[in-house]
């Protein structure tokens, strides 16, 4: 079986099931707007301090929306024991994992499509291609890590507790580099190109590591 076709088929299945139920994206969009609201009241944001505070709110919101999104990636499969069925097919576990990761990143991109314009609308920060590029780059590595840990904790007690504990520390490199890039794209000092280079390095490292590990996580 062609692993690329398998990955696309799994991703298509996940996105189709999201399209039919329309549960996650509206809930996450509402979550994002609420997070921005809390950020506004927590920091008393005005046009002067917005560029220094908005990047922090962006990453905080994205990280917690991501945790919700990835926590659900293997949730439905676990409830209906459909992952076992998928693993019984000749499809390779890595391809199945890649498909799940693709679908989860698509959901996260949908959240970002709400988050970035809303951030710009509420806080008056610039909305530029440079910022979109940073966030998309970070999404790649964050999705790979989020998905693998979601699969790891799927069969453990207290999985809601463990997913953030395991995932957040490993997302920190993305937040460090991404935070620096978004800050410099919003006009604060810091090298944009260096941060982008770091993000690409982390993306490559974690995508390779997760692809190698996927076999051991799913192959039960």
């Amino acid at each position: 079986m062609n692993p690329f076709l398998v990955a696309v088929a799994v991703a298509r299945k996940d996105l189709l099931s999201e399209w039919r139920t329309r549960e996650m994206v509206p809930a996450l969009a509402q979550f994002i707007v609420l997070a921005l609201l809390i950020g506004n009241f927590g920091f008393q944001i005005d046009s002067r301090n917005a560029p220094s505070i908005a990047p922090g709110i962006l990453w905080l919101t994205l990280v917690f929306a991501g945790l919700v999104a990835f926590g659900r990636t293997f949730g439905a499969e676990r409830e209906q024991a459909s992952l076992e069925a998928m693993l019984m097919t000749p499809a390779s576990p890595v391809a199945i994992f890649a498909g799940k990761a693709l679908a989860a990143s698509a959901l996260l991109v949908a959240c970002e499509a709400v988050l970035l314009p809303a951030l710009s609308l509420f806080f008056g920060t610039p909305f530029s291609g440079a910022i979109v590029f940073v966030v998309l780059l970070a999404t790649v590595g964050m999705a790979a890590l989020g998905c693998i840990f979601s699969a790891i904790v799927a069969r453990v007690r207290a999985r809601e507790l463990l997913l953030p504990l395991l995932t957040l520390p490993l997302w920190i490199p993305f937040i460090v580099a991404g935070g620096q890039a978004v800050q410099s794209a919003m006009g604060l000092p810091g090298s944009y190109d260096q941060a982008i280079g770091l993000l690409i390095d982390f993306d490559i490292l974690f995508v390779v590591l997760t692809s190698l590990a996927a076999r051991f996580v799913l192959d039960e």
Partner: protein
Amino acid sequence: MKVNRYEKAAAGAVALMLVAFAAIFFYAPTDWLQGAVQRIFYLHVSSAIAAYGCFTVVLLGGLVFLRNESYAADRWARAGALVGVIFTTVTLVMGSLWAKKVWGQFWVWDARLTSTLVLWIIYAGYLLVRRLAEPGRQAARIGALVGIFGFVDVPVVHFSVTWWVTQHPGPVIVNDALPPEMLATFLFTMFCTIVFAAVLVVIRYRIETLRDAKQVLVEPAKVVSARQPEPVP
């Protein structure tokens, strides 16, 4: 009273650490700029290096477990993680005390401190996972993967002072920045700390072995007693 080899090893390791403390306080010269507080350096850096060593044990144990399902390797990994977290805690606490004296505050968010804190969180998370996951093959697999992913942070911590501009000082050993007495004290403390950590790992490995043996003995009996007889139709 019969003293077993673990107790002998522990006594030897503690004695070595006491000699190292004597060297730190009575042999090493006082730093002319920072004064007595600089003596934190010896144990602070040594315990960081011991922690790296422990996390390497976790990494290797995880890799060996994934390769040939050796539960002994998994026990080494568990032992390494616990001891590594303890030594990272020592590094962080001693570093904070030193920072309060020379920087004026316990904590600054520079790359070295942040990445070390992340390292602590990752392996504390490893210990939590091991506690929450059902013991056995699955827990060992999950632990192996967390240990392998977590190890990515070790080189980040180590090279953070080279890759980023940090308030934390850069390497002093390779840059030949220490007078000979200080260097000798440091190398001796490092040796003692590594021996101490190794002894702790070995003792913990023994505890994990006994625990695993107990579980194997207890579990089948529990399953048998819990099983209800099949109703005859």
